[in-house]
């Protein structure tokens, strides 16, 4: 029997994760993170995850499972590590991935620390991913349900933390998880999956950034074509992401897409769809889950956003921890700020943050 802290979001996956571990006879301790002050106005801002209803759901499930349950206030960590970064990235013309940041800065950092301080042997979450232990090295792998696989969001887990992390539902598919929740009589069995970024529920991302960002970071600029010719004006780079077609405020006979956001000039560069495709990018801030020297001999696949398919890449180290990444097949809309996650088969071997794509690389 191990002491296991389960991060409970109030959703069905983490509910079942707790239930499974309890059935296996472990000492299970539920914990929910409070990432927002619900007493403040706009408390409905948190909608899909970690809202006050979700915390109550988690509490109800913990009660049903007869496990101790605690709340931890990680508002400060969440603001510093996730929300501030989200705003800053958008205003710099990058497209952030707050879920990866939350896993890195909050769940597998502050919460992991919390669990270990509590004397836990493991931290468990309801993510669809798997951890296997072959010999000396622990491996992070895709969830058995490829539709639900969340390994992309987990690449920032430190290699040493894999040994003390458990994903109890990673070997199941969603219908199995729901059936298990039903069997355990958990109130969350039929709860819809969370969608979207939890803290911008009721607004568009750009409205959220505008309401939260320091004024000086919101700078109007020009919309230009690929030759630098002015086509129009924009109210701030945070309103755009690479590959975007709508809301450019430019009249044109041909379909135009955002191909680049230039923080130097504050220009939004638009062009035809063909200009979105690139074979190369530069990524940085890597976290490795295998020895990076070993990847030369591996067939490495890269994935540039959660909902894109991984595809063969060649990697070349550069200075300052950056890597040049060459895709065998051109990729559409490689977006600075998004994560490049590297796989060998269904195993995550590492990943980094996309710095720049195509021409600049």
């Amino acid at each position: 029997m191990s002491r296991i802290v389960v991060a409970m979001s109030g959703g069905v996956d983490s509910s079942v994760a707790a239930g499974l571990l309890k059935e296996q006879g472990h000492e299970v301790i539920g914990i929910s993170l409070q990432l927002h002050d619900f007493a403040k106005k706009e408390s409905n801002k948190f909608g899909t995850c970690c809202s006050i209803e979700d915390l109550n759901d988690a509490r109800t499930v913990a009660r049903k499972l007869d496990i101790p349950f605690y709340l931890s206030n990680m508002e400060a960590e969440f603001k510093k590590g996730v929300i501030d970064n989200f705003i800053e990235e958008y205003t710099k013309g990058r497209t952030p991935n707050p879920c990866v940041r939350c896993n890195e800065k909050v769940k597998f950092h502050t919460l992991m620390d919390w669990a270990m301080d509590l004397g836990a042997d493991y931290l468990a979450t309801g993510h669809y991913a798997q951890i296997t232990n072959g010999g000396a090295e622990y491996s992070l792998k895709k969830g058995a349900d490829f539709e639900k696989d969340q390994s992309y969001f987990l690449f920032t887990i430190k290699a040493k933390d894999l040994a003390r992390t458990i994903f109890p539902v990673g070997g199941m598919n969603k219908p199995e998880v729901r059936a298990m929740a039903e069997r355990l009589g958990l109130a969350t069995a039929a709860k819809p999956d969370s969608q979207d970024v939890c803290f911008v529920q009721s607004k568009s991302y750009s409205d959220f950034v505008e309401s939260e960002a320091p004024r000086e970071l919101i700078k109007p600029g020009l919309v230009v074509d690929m030759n630098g010719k002015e086509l129009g004006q924009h109210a701030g780079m945070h309103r755009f992401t690479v590959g975007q077609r709508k809301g450019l405020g430019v009249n044109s006979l041909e379909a135009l897409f955002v191909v680049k956001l230039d923080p130097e000039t504050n220009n939004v560069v638009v062009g035809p769809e063909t200009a979105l495709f690139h074979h190369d990018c530069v990524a940085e801030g890597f976290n490795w889950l295998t020895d990076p020297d070993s990847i030369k001999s591996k067939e490495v696949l890269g994935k540039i956003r959660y909902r894109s398919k991984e595809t063969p890449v060649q990697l070349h180290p550069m200075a300052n921890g950056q890597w040049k990444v060459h895709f065998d097949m051109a990729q559409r809309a490689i977006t600075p700020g998004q994560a490049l996650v590297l796989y060998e088969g269904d195993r995550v071997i590492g990943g980094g943050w996309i710095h720049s794509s195509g021409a600049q690389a």
Partner: protein
Amino acid sequence: MHLPIYADFNGTTPTCPAAQAWMSKAIECWGNPSSIHKLGQASRGLLDEARGEVARACERKPGDVVFTSGGSEANTLALLGSVLGNTGYRVLSTPVEHSSVRDTCALISRLGATVEMVKIDPSGQLNWPDFLAKLDSFKPQLVSIMTANNETGVVFPLPEIVAECRSRKILVHTDAVQGFGKLPAAFWNQADFVSISAHKILGPKGAGALLIHEGLKLENTHFGGGQETKRRGGTENIVGISGFAGACTALKPEAESVAGLRDLFEAKLHHSLSDLVVMGAATKRLPNTSQIQFSGVSSEVLLSALDLDGLYVSAGSACSSGSLKPSPVLLAMGLSESAARECLRFSWGPLTTEAEVVTAANLVAGHVTRIRERKSR
């Protein structure tokens, strides 16, 4: 072992046999005290009896006792009731009051009253020169200062506060919820308005009172059928009020009930741990309360670890969802947010044994040592 151990008596207390007996009697007595018939009269009789017992425990007249749903409502009634109908009312309070006082102060400010706060020293004690200066410069009509702080146990000098105010014809309200049962009634009962609560003295939740000196003007804030001499409308909570009275009959002389437990606990901790800060150690505190900062250890984690072992304590003040915010009381004493997040409150009661206190100190020392060692690795 003596587990589980309850060390959260400032949060609430179990209901004592005397309170339970009075409540059982009241459950049978279901008539409406306002009814003229015999059933109503029976309830009225019990209510009068209860009022007498509460008044006796507070060493006040039965007519001074206005029953409320608890200490929070009593606090709200005292402040809001004083301000309503008065324009430009001035209230002097402190930043370390219970949230029911702080939040009502915010409300009365919006209603046009002016509220100023007395500075709090790093010891947790009222800054006396600042208090005196504000009495003369701000010229409040009402001073609202608690008898003893629920988080740190720091006791404010109520007799002196009342004396200073009386000489200036200023009214005094005190939230005596934590003082009642732990300090002699004479220490706090001279205030014009006194808030007390049943569930801190081994009575039930849902009953409390505001003591009001005869002849004082106070607007009603809770309307109904003119109950409680038109100061608190609504059919009386006879069961809760009776439980309150029962608890009052069983109230032990404060000093003998918990004396020594706090000091024993702190001595044990000091013996096994370094880097401890006992809040308010330099000033007068309740005999049952220790608020302690364990440097380097998150209070959330320590509280949970102790809870898993069966030692029930508390930290900070709970926010709407139940998670912890850095305590405004500790922040007002000058602690940083991170220091405030390292503080736990241990509060003992008349049922606590020395053996429990020793076991608790050992558990705390064990976890603090383990967590600090893990952090230093």
